[in-house]
């Protein structure tokens, strides 16, 4: 079961794990952003990611637009659909949150279907915004510029979002709405603008994630759906509230997959996901029990 491990194999497994985790982290940021305003788990993220990446591909490969323009185009479309989702959320304040969560999944299915109509019927990997060539070798693994670019982008976005939420007036408003929307409204905070705005940001982040993820996963909706599920798992570690912990959680999920799937511990086909599942299970129970205890103290 356990294979002899050299330092190079271990380093490679860790590197693979970190970059896999980075992909999850990009998705996780969108999930945390939307949860951070009205406590809805946004299962529209995979749809937004696929559709944003589809627009990016279409603009750059079919229309011949420069990569940077296509990138902004994909992100802008993601933001617009995210804002629309935010508007729908405002109309669903009386719905149970679980039902709103399922509603966001319908959006994913619609966007998957719409992407199918736009994309040619073959597996497609869009060009990376950081270029398809270039990179260097670390241990046994080749690290591409795309992976480095994605990693840096994820860190920058994580820090930026964390700073906005914790240090700015906008962040205070967002936290106030998250804590108690009705009370926030009585303080004169424009609830509607903020919900729509934050969901637009979540849509933009999801589209950006899709654009950065799809060069590796292809534009297969179901592959991206699974990336989002692992991302959800990573974000659960932080109780869906913290961008920083979501980033770290996603890296942990990626690392566990890298180590179990990368030859250090070989359990058998399909079992490389066991570690990630265990990480997620522990995270869910930890976050759930913490939330329950907190609720108990508050009552």
């Amino acid at each position: 079961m356990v294979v002899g491990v050299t330092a190079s194999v271990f380093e490679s497994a860790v590197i693979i794990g970190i970059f896999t985790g980075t992909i999850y982290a990009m998705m996780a940021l969108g999930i945390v952003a939307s949860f951070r305003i009205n406590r809805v788990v946004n299962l529209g993220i995979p749809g937004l990611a696929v559709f944003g990446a589809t627009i990016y591909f279409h603009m750059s490969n079919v229309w011949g637009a420069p990569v940077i323009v296509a990138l902004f185009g994909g992100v802008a479309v993601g933001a617009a659909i995210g804002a629309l989702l935010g508007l729908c959320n405002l109309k669903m304040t009386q719905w149970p949150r679980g039902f709103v969560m399922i509603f966001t999944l319908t959006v994913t299915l619609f966007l998957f279907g719409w992407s199918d109509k736009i994309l040619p019927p073959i597996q497609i990997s869009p060009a990376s915004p950081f270029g398809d060539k270039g990179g260097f070798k670390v241990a046994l693994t080749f690290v591409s510029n795309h992976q480095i670019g994605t990693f840096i982008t994820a860190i920058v976005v994580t820090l930026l979002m964390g700073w906005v939420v914790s240090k700015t007036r906008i962040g205070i408003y967002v936290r106030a709405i998250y804590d108690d929307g009705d009370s926030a409204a009585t303080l004169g905070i424009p609830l509607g603008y903020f919900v729509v705005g934050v969901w637009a940001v979540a849509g933009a982040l999801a589209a950006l994630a899709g654009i950065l993820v799809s060069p590796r996963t292809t534009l297969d909706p179901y592959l991206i759906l699974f990336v989002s599920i692992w991302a959800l798992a990573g974000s659960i570690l932080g109780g869906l509230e913290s961008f920083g912990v979501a980033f770290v959680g996603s890296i942990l999920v990626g690392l566990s997959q890298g180590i179990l799937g990368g030859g250090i511990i070989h359990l058998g086909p399909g079992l490389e996901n066991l570690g990630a599942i265990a990480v997620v299970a522990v995270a869910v129970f930890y976050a759930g029990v913490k939330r329950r205890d907190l609720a108990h103290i508050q009552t």
Partner: protein
Amino acid sequence: MIGTRRNGGAAVAEQDGDAVTGDAPAKPAKAGPTLPVTRLVLPTLVFCLGLAGEFILPNHLTYAASTALCYGLVGLGLYLPLAALRELPLNGAALAGLAAYFFAFHAHGGQAGKTALRVIVGVGLCMAVSVAGGLASLVVTGLYFSVASLVVQIGIEKVVFSMGWLTGGASGRGVAQPDPINGFFTTTRVVFLIASLTCLAITLGMWRVKKTKILANWVMTGHQPEGADAVGVRRWAQKVVIFGLSGLLIGVAGVLFAFVNGTPPPPPQFGVIWSVIFLAIPIASGMRTASAVWAVAAVFTALPIVLESHHINPNLLSGSILLVALIASQSQEAVMARIRNLRRQPEVIEEIALKEGHHALEELHEKPVAATVPATVKGEVDLRAPKQGRALVGTDIGVHFGGVKAVDGVNVRVGPGQRVAIVGANGAGKTTLFNALNGFVPPTTGTVQLGDLDITGMPAYARIRQGLGRTFQLPRLADILTVRQNIYAGQAQDNDLVARADWLMERFGVAALADIPIQVVPFGTRRKVEIVRALARRPEVLLIDEPVSGLEDEEVNELIEVMLDLQAAEGWGLLLIEHDLRFVTSIAEQMMVMVDGKVLTEGSINDVLADERVRQVYLGEVVSV
């Protein structure tokens, strides 16, 4: 004066004196709700359509109908935790897939006996995973439970389906199907017949379960967990049963999936998106009846067939079905009300409204509580016989939340027949002390004893079973249950207890509302319902939290009268929290004043009220204890 009044067909003697003779039965007969004929329309329609399908549908549609039955079974399986526990399990598809693949792999080429064994093992495996997931809901609920169930879904999808030795791998194996019977009953029809008979049996079984008192326990467990504890319901056991049944239904559906198709459908059919689509079936049905679940499952199956010629993208189609299901579930009430209004004349609507309880509410306001049933009626001795009384003793009780000492070193004792009131400002720690005595919060320090029995480590439901009764500041009653169902919840199938509950409903003047949902009952009446529920179990010590908040003065007087009368006759101890000093001084003998988690003073009512420090507390001055 002696008179008679009808109660569900049984005459109850009324009198002003202490004793009465006569032949009137002591235990009032139950006035159970009658099933409206309209409620039979949908089940009859579904049954007839299913029966007709066997003979008139072409082969390919018979196959589709069998698939619809599989969908419906998964939908029913998810309906249980969704409706009873308000949990959204996102692993229905994976559980069905697990049973389908396990059954197909191990039943491949086997004899009938072995095949039956594999059905049992496959369904059992599904039940075991479902129960394990369900037990998680004891620790995490709501969103976190949904995500935990998603983890199970991913685990099965990504790990179990790849275990060739368990499920045969992603390709699955073939399942033997029955041979045709004469020319008309093709294999597809025989498969449909077997599937529909299985589903009919399951539906009848569920219908039978809905008629039992178990339903109230299930709903109480999910909708009011603390209320369930307060009536002695073992929540973990209820959850095991609910998720076990859910796993059973989904497991049978999985086996049928393999049987109907001749081989398990490919793994993507058991993916996470399908889990959500399956979940949409009970959601779209409005979570009311099993027939509605079957009807929605039929629509979900029929739509892709009907729209096949339009070549609609499967994702767009699934998304549309989900969206319609969600909107239907959320606007069902309004739509149904409109349909009813179209069908009925205004006077008929008024009549129905009256039948549904409005007249009962009016009657309640006109009828003084204490006069509904006399203090003693011949033959009622059993219903109000005192239980062997024990004292509830809390010693050095402390409850600390981090650095906050919500309760700090409090001693409290309530003996049989004693009435003790706890008063104090908001945040003084009164309810937390109750929670520690009752088992809702583990005390950081101290012990709780009932007589000689140390109950400190017992869970709340076990303390209730030992002899504590409890009501809450905000009544913990399940809105979707009727008054009667709320009161019966947690009662053993013991006719004496049920009779006592019915008698107490009369005594507290809520019998007229017995069969209307608690959500339309006024707040003050809910308090009485909760007291009835607690007293129905014959508690040795009753803990009631702010019982008169929300009651009119007249209602308070009536409540005092009934409580004192019952307590004098039955001898239980009473520990109450109340801000209303008029009520406290009318009902309690002893009084304890709490400030900042500690006891400021205690003793007889007069002594405590004469204490200068108590006056200062009530006048808002700072007091150091």
